[in-house]
């Protein structure tokens, strides 16, 4: 069986700088895979290339055997690969529920014109979007804040809102951008549970990019480690923990978020 | 050919000064100063009044123009822009305010100076004539040299003085500048005054050649916007390049296309659009300012 997501020899160069050099790995269906590495290892560039927010210099990303790199972000989202952002990227003056409803627009059956004239299909959509939004927020434990303005939410909830918006599009693969950054231990553990349940109950494959080592060790089925734009290791959490190259990379860097 | 080059340098130096003021204000406060053209016109009228009417020496009249505009700019910043920037939910409000100020200045110009075209006596007589290939009145040469000297003085001010360093820090990152101990409110005001002063200075210089009238404000603002877009908003070198490029395009256009009527500017606009489609941030600008 072909893996769901294949990263094939992906390279990114900015001028003379190489952000990612010849990176390859696969993500299987229903897996939680984390990409980790010290600051400046090229994690976020890789993340943006997978979601087509930046083009690759060479190499490609395949989803179900189909190329999804070097397209437009919305095209990739429509195919079922949806990224989240860190907390500041939200719809500030929408409520939580409105954000989740707007994110369902890909699932709409009626056309834009149908909405304008108020067709039957459009009305059905509106009802089903509302229902699904309530159900999703219930599932994520966010029912109580569903009518809060996004700009009024505390940081921890913003991260959850990001996940909710991503999930509302009905993705097959969810790409999470540093979901645990800036969280304390309790918040992190809650988020870990949330991500797990997204995978277990909704069958969504998760690829995440993260700093926070303990959280990554708990949550991941497999881990890919980057350093200076190169892939230096790939394996299960226990394999990674004992990998000499990884230890060296983390000890060798002045990164203060080691926590291993 | 020599003639076109000389005209380009002459126009470009004036334009660069106008664009410098606009881009300075934009860089410091993220304000698109619609009233920039009106400030230029006021500078022209002040010099006209003192030099043309009252017989004050030209250089002194220029200095009075600069001071008037600097004070006007400082007042506008302190009592209008600063409070609106603080109190408004959207940054677009400053654009509305700037448009309102443009109307206000137009009204003031109308009331104080009237709507007639005004000119002043030539500052220098005579025409430089090189073999009929390059003809340039001496007063234009003087104005051009003065403009270039002013630009150099402005760049030195920005590079080497304490004020200049503070302004550059402010333009780069407001919050960081504040943390570094720059008095943000004070330097915003100084920057705005400086930008307005540049507009007034060009107005004072150009009144000796083109004269001045009420209707010049709007078109001048539009030209300034174009230069800033060519060079990249909020970048000093960009403003200078923008001014020079627009000056040369105009000089070439007027020489080559004059028989086709008013299409020079049309072509400049169209090429600007194509240019921006390829390079949205202008020559020197950072993406999205």
């Amino acid at each position, binding site marked *: 069986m072909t893996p769901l997501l294949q990263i094939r020899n992906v390279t990114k160069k900015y001028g003379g700088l190489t952000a990612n050099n010849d990176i390859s790995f696969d993500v299987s269906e229903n897996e939680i895979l984390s990409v980790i590495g010290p600051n400046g290892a090229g994690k976020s560039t890789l993340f943006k290339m997978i979601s087509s927010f930046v083009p690759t210099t060479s190499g490609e990303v395949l989803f179900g055997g189909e190329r999804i790199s070097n397209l437009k972000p*919305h095209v990739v989202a429509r195919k079922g690969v949806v990224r989240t952002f860190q907390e500041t990227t939200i719809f500030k003056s929408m409520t939580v529920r409105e954000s989740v409803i707007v994110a369902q627009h890909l699932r709409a059956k009626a056309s834009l014109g149908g909405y304008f004239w*108020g067709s039957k299909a459009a009305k059905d959509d509106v009802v089903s979007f509302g229902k699904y939004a309530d159900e999703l927020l219930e599932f994520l434990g966010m029912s109580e804040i569903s009518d809060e303005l996004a700009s009024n939410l505390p940081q921890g909830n913003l991260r959850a809102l990001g996940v909710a918006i991503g999930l509302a599009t009905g993705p097959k693969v969810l790409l999470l951008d540093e979901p645990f950054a800036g969280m304390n231990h309790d918040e992190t553990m809650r988020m870990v549970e949330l991500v797990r349940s997204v995978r277990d109950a909704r069958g969504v494959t998760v690829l995440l990019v993260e700093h926070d080592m303990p959280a990554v060790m708990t949550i991941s089925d497999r881990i890919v480690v980057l350093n200076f734009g190169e892939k230096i290791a790939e394996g299960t959490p226990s394999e990674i923990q004992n990998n000499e190259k990884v230890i060296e990379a983390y000890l060798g860097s002045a990164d203060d978020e080691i926590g291993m | 050919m020599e003639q076109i080059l000389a005209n380009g340098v002459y126009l470009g130096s004036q334009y660069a000064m106008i664009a410098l003021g606009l881009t300075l204000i934009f860089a410091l406060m993220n304000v698109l100063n619609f009233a920039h053209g009106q400030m230029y016109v006021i500078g022209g009228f002040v010099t006209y009044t003192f030099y043309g009417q009252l017989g004050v020496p030209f250089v002194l009249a220029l200095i009075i123009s600069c001071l008037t505009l600097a004070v006007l700019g400082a007042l506008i910043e302190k009592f209008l822009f600063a409070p609106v920037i603080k109190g408004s939910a959207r940054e677009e409000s400053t654009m509305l305010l700037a448009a309102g100020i443009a109307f*206000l200045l137009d009204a003031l110009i109308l009331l104080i100076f009237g709507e007639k075209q005004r000119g002043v006596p030539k500052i220098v007589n005579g025409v430089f004539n090189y073999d009929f290939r390059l003809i340039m009145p001496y007063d234009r040469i003087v104005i051009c040299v003065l403009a270039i000297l002013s630009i150099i003085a402005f760049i030195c001010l920005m590079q080497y003085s304490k004020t200049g360093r503070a302004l550059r820090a402010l333009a780069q990152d407001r919050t960081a500048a504040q943390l570094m101990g720059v008095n943000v409110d004070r330097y915003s005001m100084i920057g705005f005054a400086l930008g307005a002063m540049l507009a007034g200075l060009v107005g004072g210089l150009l009144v000796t050649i083109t004269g001045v009238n009420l209707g010049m404000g709007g078109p001048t603002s539009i030209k300034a916007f174009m230069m800033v877009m060519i060079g990249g908003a909020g970048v000093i070198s960009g403003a200078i390049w923008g001014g020079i490029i627009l000056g040369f395009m105009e000089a070439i256009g007027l020489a080559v296309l004059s028989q086709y009527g008013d299409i020079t500017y049309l072509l400049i606009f169209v090429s600007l659009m194509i240019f921006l489609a390829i390079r949205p941030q202008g020559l020197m600008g950072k993406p999205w300012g």
Partner: protein
Amino acid sequence: MKNLTSKQLVGVGLFLFAVFVAVPVLIRITGRWDFYFTLTSVALLAIASAGVWLTFYIGRINIGQGAFALIGAYVSAILVVKGGVSFWISLPAAGLFAALVAILIGLPILRLRGVYFAMITLVLTQVVTLTALALPITNGAKGISSIPLPSGISIFGVPIIPDFAAMENTKLAFYYAACILMILTYAALYRLVNSRLGHLCRSMQQNEELASSIGVNISYIRIVIFAISSFFGGIGGAMFGSIAQSVYPSSFQVADSVNFMLNCFLGGLGYVFGPMLGTLVLYFGWDLLFELGKYQLLVYSLILIAVIRFLPNGLLSLRLGKGGPK
């Protein structure tokens, strides 16, 4: 108009009554026939302002509506005068042509954001004025004058729209026509904003990156919205030309584009009916200040600045319009 609360229905009813009954009666009583021209202008400018407001709704500051109004005015005038087409056919044609131009120009410039977009649209107004001066078909600086009044339309012998030239009171007829157009425009705008397209626009206004990550084709929607916006501009301009019976390159200038923007800001960007109110206040205010003679512009600009200084979020932020047709 469905899904309106009873309160909103009352508001709409009151508004329609005011526009179609109360205003004509008041004008008859007071004998201020000149107000018809003022109010007709307000209605038409409000249509163009609605377009500007819509571009704000996707987070773009549009100071180029004068360009599209001028395009609309010329297209309609050329069709009527040179093509002998009925005005009522030239009207949608003017809107569509403006929309087409918007698509062509929008492809490159809609990638620009913030002040960059604002500046280029401002320049655009100047470009169209210069084009009108340079092209032979627009007749240069002389413009197109003595445009005939709109002719009547009848379907199977049943008159739908009467012949304006045969009417005694064309002022009233133009007033009604402009108001009907304005109401149609705002009804369409209201529907659009409250439909899915409106929600997608809002998502783009707040964060384009996030919007594209949930699958919104932002470049497509930008073009669609800019085209609709310019359609409104073209319609408003065409009708204006028909009332003035003439079009010149100076019919819509940079100052007009700035005014369209001011109408939207002043009314409030968060409210569909904001631009209508803003247009009314600004245009009427300007007209009332006419008595002040040479102090007109001074007082007008001082009031404008005071409003911005003390109500930076628009007139409707006072919630004066709450009982109105919101």
